């Protein structure tokens, strides 16, 4: 969501909370489920980052994705949504399980199986969808709704983001 806000050049105030401790009361009033992030947009509380990113793209036509009314816009939106949806349901979901397994000290064999599951999902879902990337999704020269729509933690799947720090935002 933060990437989308910046890519759309939308002024905003970022408020950080520590997610390693129980959510503060003021936050639970905004988002009773305690999920992060939350966006307050002109008085409306918006939750679920993927849905918020789509909302921002809809509200602020840009290079991220064609509007539904533009020629080919609806089809492009469908293609973008399918890629993100499959990525989240496959590789991303398996990656989360891998992180949980690593965090709870699961056996090496179990972690290896989950790692294989992540890679298998990437082979099956992501590789074909990126066939015409050039350099960004669907041959675009600038980032699209796909690049800003994938879960930000998934960027840590590759070394430049992970770096030597092993930390992700």
């Amino acid at each position, binding site marked *: 969501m933060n990437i989308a806000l910046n890519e759309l050049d939308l002024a905003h105030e970022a408020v950080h909370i520590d*997610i390693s401790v129980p959510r503060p009361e003021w936050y639970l009033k*905004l988002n009773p489920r305690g999920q992060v992030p939350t966006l307050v947009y002109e008085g409306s509380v918006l939750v679920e980052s993927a849905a918020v990113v789509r909302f921002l793209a809809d509200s602020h036509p840009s290079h991220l994705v064609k509007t539904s009314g533009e020629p080919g816009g609806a089809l492009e939106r469908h293609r973008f949504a399918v890629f993100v949806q499959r990525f989240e349901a496959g590789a991303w979901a398996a990656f989360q399980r891998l992180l949980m397994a690593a965090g709870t000290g699961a056996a090496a064999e179990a972690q290896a199986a989950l790692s294989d599951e992540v890679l298998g999902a990437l082979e099956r879902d992501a590789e074909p969808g990126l066939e015409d990337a050039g350099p960004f999704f669907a041959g675009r020269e600038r980032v699209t709704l796909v690049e800003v729509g994938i879960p930000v933690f998934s960027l840590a799947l590759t070394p430049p983001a992970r770096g030597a720090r092993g930390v992700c935002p």
Partner: protein
Amino acid sequence: MLLGPSLMLVASLPRELDFPGSWDADLARRAPRFKAWLELVVQVPNVSFAWNDGNLAQLKAKLAELASAAKDQKVDRGE
């Protein structure tokens, strides 16, 4: 459309990650397009912001500040 001060984002602070030793090599072998694409994406200025050392240091300082404030609140309440 201009957005005013009513727009507020609440985001999470960093957490540690751990990867299997062969991860990077396996990724390059089995999902080369994805790896190349993702490596490009993380270099986009609005994306790389999250990985910038200076920003990371700021986030860590903010985390320490939040932890300290939470500790002070407990002391104030006599916990």
